[in-house]
């Protein structure tokens, strides 16, 4: 078929524009997009609101420092995750050495540990009073800090190390998937043209994987900007820490909004890098023939080095923190009242489940709306609805809390004037506000997952269902939903776990005295009482393992030709 027509005929089925149900799709998607984009817009609005030369003050005082620190942190983490992620992906994909099959999935495990939790753990064991320095003192007979040098964990370098340890899996996962997806033919052509295996890898496989690696680094850096717990605890003054400082300590919302705006510029740069890489990714498949990738057997010294290289990030990023938390949890059961823990866990469960349910439902609604051919406006609206994934929680928190407070005040004043009743704060500091914040940040996650899975259902399936008598909703229920069950569950799990780990927004948006596992860990661990909150931290890590399992299954399945035996879409 000619390209133009092939495109035309494979266009998604268009449904009738008549009828309320269809309009509901268009209007609903636009409304969701508006709600999801509102916090970011609110930040911009607040930032340009007149204030008492806060900006000039910020620029003279803290801004240069925030900028330097943030950029240094991003540079450090960027280099760190690139080196660790690409290096390990390369080893487990291209070489054969003992334990390779286990490393292939275990390298994803550190993703389960939030940066703030690993920071608490390492501070706990590496600080002066901790077991490591204690053991060193005992061993060498030192008696005071003057006797020896030990790296300060609570520093910029420490923050870089912590974040690299838990964020490198983003690069690892994407780079590995890219290596697996590559056609072996291009590697073989390179070999036949006279390049050795290692040079072929460097000159063919690595450049082909470059877009995927760029995406991985961008995602890791977005997480870096989002982090609050680590930089707060380490007193590393990045923009996120700065926003809280200016907002809560200097009590300047517009100042915080202005900092947030500067931060959004960095975010935009990351989004641009990611989009650029995603576009490139599409052109990087030259053939469709796949075979088992060639692997190079390593023995003795190289094998030992490879094992060390792969084991180190897993041990440091997952095994040690988990072991410490388990150890403390066993000892802590006496310290923490079980009732408290149960309440916090239930709170986390409730909030995260609500967010997961809503995000999955809305994501499905939007994805199917786009598929029904609601036109360019709806497509654009879904993009707008997805901006939140890149925006740091601290920025979104400002964007949610301030407009809500103003709305509440307006309603209160109106009700007071008209009916003489004070409604107080209706939405601020409610579970609805927290859930809204989670939705803004994580909707892209569920939408993306559902949309990708919907794209695998060929358009002719829709056509077949429709001509056999199913209306759009009937087709969704009888054809799409059963085919997408796994992905819908995956989408819900992803949102659930990320909501559970979320700290910066939860801290600000939660109802007064309402503790989740994450805020509870933050409260206690930042006061160096890690033992007490270890069970809560452990619960978060355990939940975090779920998406890791999903991810590792997805990567294995990503290799073309190893997919299910279903007919390939024509």
């Amino acid at each position, binding site marked *: 078929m*000619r390209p*133009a027509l092939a495109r035309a005929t494979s266009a998604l089925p268009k449904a*009738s524009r008549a009828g309320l149900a269809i309009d509901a799709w268009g209007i609903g998607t636009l409304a969701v997009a508006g709600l999801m984009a509102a916090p970011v817009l609110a930040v911009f609005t607040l930032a340009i609101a007149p204030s008492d030369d806060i900006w000039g003050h910020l620029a003279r005082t803290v801004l240069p420092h925030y900028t330097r620190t943030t950029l240094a942190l991003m540079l450090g983490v960027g280099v760190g995750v690139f080196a660790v992620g690409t290096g390990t992906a390369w080893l487990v994909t291209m070489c054969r050495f003992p334990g390779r099959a286990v490393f292939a999935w275990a390298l994803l495990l550190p993703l389960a540990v939030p940066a703030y939790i690993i920071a608490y753990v390492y501070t706990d064991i590496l600080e002066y009073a901790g077991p490591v320095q204690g053991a060193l003192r005992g061993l060498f007979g030192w008696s005071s800090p003057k006797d020896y040098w030990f790296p300060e964990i609570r520093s910029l370098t420490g923050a870089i190390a912590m974040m690299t340890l838990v964020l490198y899996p983003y690069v690892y996962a994407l780079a590995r998937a890219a290596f697996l997806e590559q056609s072996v033919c291009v590697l073989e052509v390179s070999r036949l043209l006279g390049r050795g295996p290692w040079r072929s890898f460097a000159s063919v496989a690595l450049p082909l994987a470059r877009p995927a690696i760029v995406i991985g680094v961008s995602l890791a850096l977005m997480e870096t900007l989002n982090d609050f717990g680590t930089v707060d605890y380490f007193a590393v003054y990045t923009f996120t820490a700065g926003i809280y400082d200016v907002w809560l300590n200097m009590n300047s919302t517009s100042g915080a909004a202005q900092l947030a705006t500067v931060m959004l510029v960095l975010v935009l740069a990351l989004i641009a890098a990611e989009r650029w890489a995603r576009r490139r990714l599409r052109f990087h498949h030259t053939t469709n023939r796949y075979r088992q990738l060639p692997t190079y057997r390593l023995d003795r010294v190289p094998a030992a080095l490879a094992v060390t290289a792969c084991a180190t990030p897993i041990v440091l990023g997952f095994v040690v923190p988990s072991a410490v938390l388990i150890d403390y949890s066993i000892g802590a059961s006496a310290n923490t009242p079980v009732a408290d823990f149960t309440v916090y866990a239930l709170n986390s469960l409730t909030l995260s489940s609500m967010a997961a349910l809503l995000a999955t439902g809305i994501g499905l609604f939007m994805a199917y709306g786009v598929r029904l051919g609601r036109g360019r406006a709806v497509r654009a609206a879904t993009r707008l609805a997805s901006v939140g994934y890149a925006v740091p929680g601290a920025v979104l928190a400002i964007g949610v809390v301030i407009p809500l407070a103003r709305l509440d005040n307006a309603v209160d004043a109106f009700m007071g004037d008209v009916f003489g009743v004070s409604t107080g704060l209706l939405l601020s500091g409610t579970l609805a506000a927290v859930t809204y914040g989670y939705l803004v940040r994580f909707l892209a996650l569920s939408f993306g997952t559902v949309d990708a899975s919907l794209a695998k259902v060929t358009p002719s399936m829709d*056509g*077949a269902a429709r001509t056999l*008598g*199913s209306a759009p909703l009937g087709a969704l229920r009888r*054809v799409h939903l059963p085919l997408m069950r796994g992905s819908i569950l995956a989408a819900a799990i992803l949102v659930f776990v990320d909501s559970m780990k979320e700290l910066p927004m939860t801290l600000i948006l939660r109802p007064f005295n309402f503790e989740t596992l994450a805020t509870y860990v933050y409260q206690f661990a930042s006061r160096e009482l890690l033992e007490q909150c270890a069970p809560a931290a452990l619960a978060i890590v355990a939940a975090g393992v779920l998406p890791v399992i999903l991810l590792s299954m997805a990567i294995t399945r990503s290799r073309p030709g190893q997919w299910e*035996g279903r*007919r390939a879409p024509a």
Partner: protein
Amino acid sequence: MSELVAIEVSHAFPGTRVLESVSLTVEAGQLVCLIGPSGCGKTTLLRVIAGLDRLQRGRVLVEGKVVADADARRHTSPEKRGIGLMFQDYALFPHLNVFENVVYGVARSGERATWAREALARMGLEGYADAYPHTLSGGEQQRVALLRALAPAPKVLLLDEPFSDLDITRRAQIREETFDLLKETGVATLMVTHDPEEAMFMADHILVMAGGRIVQAGPPLKTYLEPVDAFVAALFGPVNRLEGTVAGGRVATPLGSLAADGIPDGTRVQVLIRPEALQLDPAPDGVAGDTELSVDWARLLGRTSLVRLRMRSRATGAEVLLHARVYGTFLPATGTAVSVRLDRDRAFVFPAADN
């Protein structure tokens, strides 16, 4: 009664006109084939008729009732049109087994479900009722898809390239089975194909489409023997091309003269000759007169032999290559001089493209 009528349907995608004022009629029990090169708008026409794409211009009637009318902004959604559509990729639901697929559009028990069971049995698929589509062969999937489209007893059935995904060795048999089933159900069928043999076999009526228009409509025999232009002639099989000028209502070629009905004298024309229209005889002196004909090579292709001829003008020395298809084994040695008799039913004269 005309079960399906499309009146002046036009359709465009951004930047491309796909259908230009297409009209057609399919009677009950009739099988109409829409043939044309890839990308001529055939599939779009099916989608518009089925209601999967919204009609932009024109009208569509099923059983005499308007289901789509662009001017009146009427659009009956596909599920309410009573039109069956079988997709080129079959679009079997992978999560449903064969029986569940077939009865998707009807009640799971009842008259049509019974019909479905019987039809499955008759197509030799009774053992597969519980099997999932991906475990079936291409031919079995095709039959399931056909039965699924027929199960709701549609008045109109649309088939999009129903045999193109099949193994060449199974195609003829499945084509015949499909033909029998369609004739038995009496459904008005509009089938899209790019394979002329398939169209000739299946169709009561052939519509030839090019560039979004119907360029010729008629029964298979007439379409094959009386193509309206060089495009249609070439679509239905390979041709040898010669050039000439009309004089006295005829055009003279080295192979003989042909009637050029309705073309004014002095017009430059192209003469299209099917390979099977060249009937070869060994002849020591080739064609009489100005032209020498000799065998360049000959190959046995199975049922027929393909012979390439070298036709040389004694006067100018100009050479032309011709292909002839001869039934059975006919393999003269290279250089053998031959004489040609022309079957004028399979040779066509059209004004040259540059006129």
